[in-house]
C-alpha cells in the first residue's frame, strides 16, 4: 500500500496545505538552526579541549578523549539549546504553530465528540492506587457531562491469581460505587504476549473498531475530564493527527527522591517541553501514556513486528511507543506533543532503586531502537533522530565512563611514563607537552554552564509567568533549586555507572540479577549497601589511585567519585518519606498542585477504599473469592467452563486440595487454573459455607464475618 493511498483512506477532512507546509518549513528552519548551533559549539569546545590536552591530540588516548568529548558535549548542547528555544518561545507567548493555538475555545467546543476508549494496561500494579486513579479520572469526566462518549477499559496482564482476583474485586467495587457498569470494563489476558503493546493490540482486535479514539493511561496516570474532552475535540478538528501526546507533570510525591524529581519536572519542564515540541512539531514522539490515538490509523499502521536481528535485536520490541509514533508518521499522519494541555499527570518512582529498575527496562528498549532506526524503511528523518536521542539517553553514560577512563590513563601516563619529546622518529624538533590547568577550568565551567544555565532560565520563566508562588515564594524557590541541583549532581555519577551496566547487559543480551531489589517505598540500608557496593568500591579505588597519582587529579575526580562513594546513604536518605513530608510542610520543593490543591488529587487521595488496599483485607483475595457470596459470583462470571479431559481431572484434584488445605498450599499456577474455572469457584463456595467451624474454611468464614461486622460498625 502506498502512503498516499493510506492518507486518502484514513483522513476524512483534508487539512489546508498551508498549515502543513507552514509547520514543515518551520520545523526545517528550527532543526537546521539547532544543528548549526550544536555543531559549532561542539567543534569550538573540542578544539579548546585539544588545546588543553598536553600533546594536543597527538596520541590515540588524546584522540579518544577529544572524540568522546565532542559527542558528549554535542549531547548536552542539544539539551541546552532546547531549553533556550523553549524559553524564547514562551517569552513570545508560546508556539503559534502548536495544535492548541490553531483553534479558539469556541471552535473546539463546537466539535462533536466521538466514541473514545480510555485504556489502562496494568501488570501487577498497586491495586488501591490504580483503581483510585481510574475513579478520579472517571469522576472528573462525569463532571464534564460527556461521560457517555467514553468507555474505560482496565487491561490486565497480571499473572499472580491473588493480584488479578483483587483487581477483579476492585473493578466490581468501583462499578458499584460509580454506577459505571456500562462504561467501565475489565479484561485480563491469559497469554500476555508482546508485553504492553501486545495488551493494547489485543484490546484493539476485540473492541478497537467501536472507538474512533483511544486514550492510553498508565497505572499511575491521572488526567482531568476537561483535558480528555479537549483532546478528543482537537483530534476531531485535526484529522491528520494520528497521535496527540500531552506532557504529564509529576504529582503526589512523598519521598525525598520523588519530591526532588517532581519539583524539577514542574520547575524546568515548561521550557524544555516547549523547546522539544517546537523542534518536533508534527513529528513528535509518543511516550506510551497520557496520549490520544486515532484508533483506525493505529490499527492499520502501527502493529509491531518482531525484530529479526541478532541478540538484543531479536524478538519483541520492549519500548513500543517511539516505534509506534514512527510508524504513524510513516503512514502520513502527524504526531504532536502539546505542552499546553493541562491536568495531565503521572507519578515519580519513590526511590532511586525503583528509578534505576525502570531505567534498566528502558535502556534495553531504547537500545533495541537502533535496529529500527537503521533498517526500518521510509521512516521520517525526525523519527530516526528521536530514536538516536533515546539511544543516547543511555549510551551517553558508558561514553562518559570511557572518557573518565581515558583521562585517568592520560594523567597516569604524564606522571608515570617518562616524557617522550620525539614521538615521531627521525624528527629534528622536540614535542613539548603543555599542560594548562586554567584552560581546563574554563572548559569545565563552560560544560557546567550548558548544564545549569537552562535551569536559571526556568527560574526567570517562573518569575516572568508569576509561578513563583506555586513553588512557595522566592525565598523557598531558590533553596529548592539549589537543593535540586545538589541532588541531581549527586545522582548523575550513580546513574552514569548504573546506565553503563544496563547498556553493557543489553548489548551482551545478558540478564544479570540486580541485587537488593526494593519492594517497599523506602530503601533499606542493607539493600542500598548491597546495591551500591560495586560503584562505591570502584569509585573509592579510583579516588585512591588519583590521590596517589597526583593531588590535582584527585580533586578533579571528586565530583564523580564522591557521589559514588556515598551512593548508599544518598539512596537511603532520598527514599525516606519523613524528610520529604517535613520539607513539604515547610513548602520546599513545592509544586502548583500542592499550593493550590487539585480536585483530581483530592479525589485520588481522600477516598480510601478499604477493600482495595492490602490493609483492608483480612484474608487473601483467593479466600475472599471463595467465601464472599457476591464476589464469588463476580469471579464466576469472569471465569471459564472446562469441558473435561486431562485438565478437568487436574482441576478436580486441585479443588479437593484447596478445600482441605486452603489456597495457600497451591502453587501460583495451580491456583490460577483453579480460580479460572467457573465450576470450581461455585463448588468451593458451596463447600466452604457448609464446612465445619474448625476446618480451614470454617475459620476463614469466621474471619470474614468479623471483618464484615467491623465494616458495618465503622
Amino acid at each position, binding site marked *: *500500500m502506498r502512503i498516499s493511498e*493510506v492518507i486518502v483512506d484514513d483522513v476524512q477532512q483534508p487539512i489546508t496545505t498551508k498549515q502543513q507546509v507552514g509547520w514543515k518549513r518551520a520545523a526545517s528552519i528550527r532543526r537546521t538552526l539547532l544543528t548549526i548551533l550544536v555543531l559549532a559549539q561542539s567543534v569550538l569546545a573540542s578544539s579548546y579541549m585539544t588545546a588543553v590536552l598536553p600533546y594536543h591530540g597527538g596520541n590515540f588516548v588524546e584522540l579518544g578523549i577529544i572524540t568522546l568529548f565532542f559527542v558528549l558535549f554535542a549531547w548536552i548542547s542539544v539539551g541546552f539549546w532546547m531549553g533556550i528555544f523553549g524559553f524564547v518561545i514562551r517569552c513570545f507567548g508560546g508556539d503559534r504553530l502548536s495544535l492548541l493555538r490553531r483553534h479558539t475555545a469556541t471552535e473546539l467546543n463546537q466539535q462533536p465528540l466521538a466514541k473514545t476508549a480510555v485504556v489502562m494496561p496494568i501488570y501487577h500494579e498497586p491495586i488501591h492506587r490504580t483503581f483510585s486513579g481510574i475513579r478520579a479520572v472517571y469522576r472528573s469526566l462525569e463532571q464534564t457531562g460527556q461521560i457517555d462518549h467514553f*468507555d474505560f*477499559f482496565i487491561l490486565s496482564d497480571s499473572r499472580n491469581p491473588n493480584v488479578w482476583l483483587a483487581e477483579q474485586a476492585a*473493578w*466490581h467495587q468501583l*462499578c*458499584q460505587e460509580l454506577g*459505571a*457498569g*456500562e462504561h*467501565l*470494563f*475489565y*479484561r485480563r489476558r491469559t497469554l500476555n504476549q508482546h508485553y504492553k503493546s501486545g495488551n493494547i*493490540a489485543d484490546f*484493539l*482486535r*476485540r*473492541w*478497537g*473498531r*467501536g472507538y474512533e479514539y483511544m486514550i492510553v493511561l498508565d497505572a499511575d496516570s491521572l488526567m482531568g475530564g476537561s483535558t480528555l474532552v479537549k483532546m478528543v475535540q482537537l483530534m476531531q478538528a485535526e484529522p491528520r493527527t494520528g497521535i496527540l501526546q500531552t506532557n504529564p507533570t509529576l504529582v503526589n510525591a512523598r519521598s525525598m527522591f520523588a519530591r526532588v524529581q517532581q519539583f524539577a519536572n514542574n520547575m524546568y519542564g515548561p521550557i524544555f517541553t516547549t523547546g522539544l515540541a517546537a523542534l518536533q512539531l508534527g513529528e513528535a514522539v509518543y511516550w506510551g501514556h497520557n496520549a490520544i490515538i486515532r484508533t483506525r490509523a493505529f*490499527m*492499520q*499502521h*502501527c*502493529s509491531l*513486528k518482531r525484530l529479526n536481528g541478532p541478540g538484543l535485536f531479536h524478538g519483541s520490541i520492549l519500548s513500543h511507543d517511539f516505534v509506534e509514533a514512527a510508524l504513524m508518521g*510513516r*503512514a502520513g499522519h502527524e504526531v504532536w506533543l502539546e505542552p499546553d494541555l493541562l491536568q495531565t499527570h503521572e507519578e515519580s518512582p519513590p526511590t532511586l532503586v525503583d528509578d534505576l529498575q525502570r531505567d534498566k527496562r528502558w535502556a534495553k528498549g531504547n537500545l533495541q531502537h537502533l535496529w529500527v532506526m537503521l533498517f526500518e*524503511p*521510509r521512516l521520517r528523518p525526525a523519527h530516526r533522530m528521536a530514536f538516536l536521542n533515546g539511544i543516547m539517553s543511555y549510551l551517553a553514560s558508558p561514553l562518559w565512563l570511557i572518557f573518565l577512563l581515558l583521562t585517568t590513563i592520560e594523567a597516569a601516563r604524564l606522571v608515570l611514563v617518562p616524557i617522550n619529546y620525539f614521538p615521531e622518529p627521525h624528527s629534528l624538533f622536540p614535542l613539548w607537552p603543555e599542560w594548562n590547568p586554567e584552560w581546563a577550568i574554563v572548559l569545565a565551567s563552560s560544560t557546567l554552564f550548558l548544564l545549569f544555565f537552562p535551569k536559571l532560565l526556568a527560574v526567570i520563566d517562573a518569575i516572568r509567568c508569576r509561578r513563583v508562588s506555586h513553588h512557595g515564594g522566592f525565598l523557598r524557590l531558590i533553596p529548592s533549586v539549589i537543593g535540586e541541583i545538589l541532588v541531581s549532581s549527586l545522582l548523575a555519577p550513580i546513574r552514569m555507572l548504573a546506565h553503563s551496566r544496563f547498556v553493557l547487559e543489553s548489548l551482551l543480551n545478558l540478564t544479570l540479577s540486580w541485587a537488593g531489589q526494593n519492594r517497599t517505598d523506602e530503601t533499606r540500608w542493607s539493600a542500598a549497601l548491597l546495591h551500591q557496593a560495586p560503584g562505591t568500591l570502584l569509585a573509592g579505588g579510583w579516588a585512591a589511585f588519583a590521590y596517589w597519582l597526583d593531588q590535582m587529579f584527585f580533586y578533579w575526580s571528586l565530583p564523580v567519585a564522591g557521589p559514588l562513594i556515598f551512593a548508599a546513604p544518598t539512596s537511603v536518605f532520598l527514599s525516606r518519606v519523613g524528610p520529604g513530608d517535613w520539607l513539604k510542610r515547610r513548602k520546599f520543593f513545592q509544586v502548583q498542585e500542592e499550593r493550590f490543591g487539585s480536585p483530581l488529587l483530592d479525589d485520588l487521595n481522600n477516598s480510601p477504599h478499604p477493600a482495595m488496599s492490602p490493609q483492608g483485607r483480612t484474608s487473601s483475595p483467593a479466600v475472599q473469592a471463595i467465601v*464472599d*457470596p*457476591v464476589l464469588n*459470583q*463476580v469471579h464466576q*462470571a*469472569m471465569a471459564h467452563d472446562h469441558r473435561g479431559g486431562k485438565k478437568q481431572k487436574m482441576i478436580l484434584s486441585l479443588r479437593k486440595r484447596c478445600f482441605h488445605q486452603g489456597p495457600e498450599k497451591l502453587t501460583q499456577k495451580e491456583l490460577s487454573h483453579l480460580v479460572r474455572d467457573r465450576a470450581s469457584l461455585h463448588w468451593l463456595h*458451596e463447600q466452604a*459455607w*457448609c*464446612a*465445619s*467451624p474448625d476446618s480451614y474454611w470454617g475459620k476463614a*468464614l469466621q474471619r*470474614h*464475618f468479623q471483618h*464484615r461486622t467491623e465494616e458495618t460498625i465503622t
Partner: protein
Amino acid sequence: MIARSLAEQALSRVCHYLSAMGVELTREVTVQALKLVEAGLASEQEDPLQFVMARVHEHFAIQKPVLPTTAPPITRSSMGFSE
C-alpha cells in the same frame, strides 16, 4: 472466648449469607432463619450446617446480584502491518 454451639454457628452463617446477598434481616427473616436452623438440628441424616446452607435459597427470596458487564460485545478486527 466462649465456644459457640452448632446452632449458633448455623444461625450466624444463614444470617451472614442473607446479609451478604442483600437480604434485610427483619424480624420475619430472622424467625424464618431460626426455623431453618431448628429443622437442621432436628435432621439426623445431615450435618446441620450443610442442611441449612443447602436449603437457604429455597427458604428465602434471594435476588441474584446484578453484576456489571465485564466487557462490551466483541467487534473483532485485525492489526495491520502496512508500510
